[in-house]
């Protein structure tokens, strides 16, 4: 049986329950000339439960249709039934690699909606937490991206460094990952005495670890072969499709929300924003590596600002932040505030706000609409992974499946972030 006759004997009629994708794949798929293959939802390289319906001509991708929703947890609807302070814990688990970024976006939206001020010290503390979160998220990205492309040692090294950051998080919030440390008005509690020396010890040790990773990958001919020229996206296409963060900066667009519309006092810190040139996987990789080095700079400057920063770790406005337990013993107002805040929670006006911050993945925006009561009417998060998965088909035209693995890794998607 020759190859041609095998092709002729295949079904010429499209069978299956995928009627609605008939107009989304080319006609060659319906005749059986190209193959329709499911990549995921259970797949080692899709970084979560992502289903990609691939139309393949041999190894080459003709069409790529992402199918998401396998991790849709209804977080936004759950938050509509919780008061604002309780809702912070729900935000932790959306982008589970950068929980403090989600907390910060939501808390900043609440603060904008009700007009709550954040003291300077709390802002510096938040910056330290956010930058540590950024380093930790980029370490997971690097580890999983490298192991997808075959570099297994990098995975183990990155997770070894990440354990040190998780120890720091455990010290301040009690939890390694979902600490809910950033609350409306500031942070949950002050840094323990051991925190600042431990952060400094980590920062002293970390730059040479990044050098180790670069030694393994940046000039490695295997890495260069697999990442240079792959997954190129032009800057205007990336902008039009809503890319943000390192995925956009890899194409050369100089947009970092920390620089453009500074929040939490980012205008006081000196740091560079690494930019790519070609918009391929390699440039996005370099952007994130250099971002880790910039994070170290920011944390050092924040630690220097910490002793002189004015105010406490959380706003003093007792209408919104609960009083410390020591006060409850001798102040009636404190008892009343404590009671009102922990039973009912504070109220927010029947207006809408939108706050966007720079998470490790890109722009995470929190749209918050209050009711005038203690629960929100609508919380919607615009998450960077959502927009980037939308753009995967653009980057993977005329590439092979192995390149698709590199592309998915390079846009740093987290499915909890995408599906919420």
């Amino acid at each position, binding site marked *: 049986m020759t190859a041609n006759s095998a092709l002729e004997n295949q079904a010429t009629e499209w069978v299956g329950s995928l009627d609605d994708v008939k107009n989304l794949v080319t006609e060659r798929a319906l005749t059986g000339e190209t193959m329709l293959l499911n990549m995921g939802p*259970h797949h080692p390289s899709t970084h*979560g439960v992502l289903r990609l319906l691939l139309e393949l001509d041999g190894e080459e991708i003709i069409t790529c249709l992402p199918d998401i929703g396998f*991790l*849709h*947890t209804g977080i936004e609807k759950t938050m509509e039934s919780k008061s604002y302070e309780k809702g912070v*814990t729900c935000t932790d688990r959306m982008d589970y690699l950068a929980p403090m970024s989600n907390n910060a976006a939501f808390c900043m939206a609440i603060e904008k909606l009700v007009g709550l001020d954040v003291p300077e010290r709390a802002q510096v503390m938040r910056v330290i937490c956010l930058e540590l979160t950024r380093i930790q998220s980029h370490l997971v990205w690097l580890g999983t991206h490298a192991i997808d492309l075959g570099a297994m040692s990098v*995975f183990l090294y990155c997770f*070894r460094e990440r*354990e040190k950051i998780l120890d720091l998080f455990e010290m301040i919030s009690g939890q390694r990952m979902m600490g809910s440390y950033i609350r409306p008005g500031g942070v949950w509690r002050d840094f323990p005495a051991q925190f600042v020396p431990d952060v400094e010890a980590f920062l002293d040790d970390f730059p040479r670890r990044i050098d180790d990773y670069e030694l393994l990958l940046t000039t490695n001919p295997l890495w260069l072969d697999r990442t240079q020229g792959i997954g190129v996206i032009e800057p205007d296409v990336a902008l039009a499709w809503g890319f943000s963060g390192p995925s956009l900066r890899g194409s050369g667009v100089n947009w970092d929300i920390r620089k453009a519309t500074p929040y939490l006092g980012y205008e006081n810190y000196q740091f560079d924003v690494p930019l790519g040139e070609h918009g391929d996987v390699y440039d996005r990789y370099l952007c994130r590596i250099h971002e880790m080095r910039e994070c170290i700079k920011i944390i050092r400057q924040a630690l220097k600002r910490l002793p002189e920063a004015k105010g406490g770790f959380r706003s003093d406005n007792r209408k919104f932040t609960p009083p410390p337990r020591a006060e409850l013993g001798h102040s009636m107002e404190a008892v009343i505030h404590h009671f009102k805040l922990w039973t009912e929670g504070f109220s927010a006006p029947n207006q809408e706000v939108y706050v966007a911050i720079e998470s490790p993945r890109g722009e995470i925006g929190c749209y918050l609409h209050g009711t005038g009561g203690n629960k929100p009417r609508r919380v919607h998060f615009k998450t960077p992974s959502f927009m980037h998965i939308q753009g995967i088909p653009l980057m993977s035209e005329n590439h092979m499946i192995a390149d698709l693995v590199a592309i998915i890794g390079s846009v740093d998607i987290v499915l*909890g972030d995408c599906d919420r």
Partner: protein
Amino acid sequence: MGVTQKLGDLGVVTTTLETAINWARTGATWPLLFGLACCAIEYMSTQGGRYDLARFGMELNRASPRQADLMIVAGRVTRKMAPVVRNLYDQMANPKWVIAMGDCASCGGVYNNYAVVQGVDEIIPVDVYVAGCPPRPEQLIHGILTLHEKIMGERIKDWA
């Protein structure tokens, strides 16, 4: 022959067939490479250098369910993903075990709503439940050791 010589005066080692089989099974239960959400990241940390899962013979995650023994459901199972989980469980060959890692897999966790299956034991039978959100690597290792205890207590007449 060689074994008895190495053991010298000990002569012969006796055990029951059950114990031998169960001990062999606990030695290397290959997990299915199946991470859903945040618990998967803690699972990856457990496989990292500090909390080394390789000492249990479990550093080798099999992507194919046919080759896996243990399914660690790490993360929330949504209604859209539930048929996929059941399919994967059906495709695994006996002997197979399931650890429900984390609160979401054990009971639905934080998410008591329309989208999340309230506990993966609604779809597949679970052997060990590990609590935590996400469970610390030490908690997961405790769950794995509990599973090993369960496997050591299995009787041949239950599955042969």
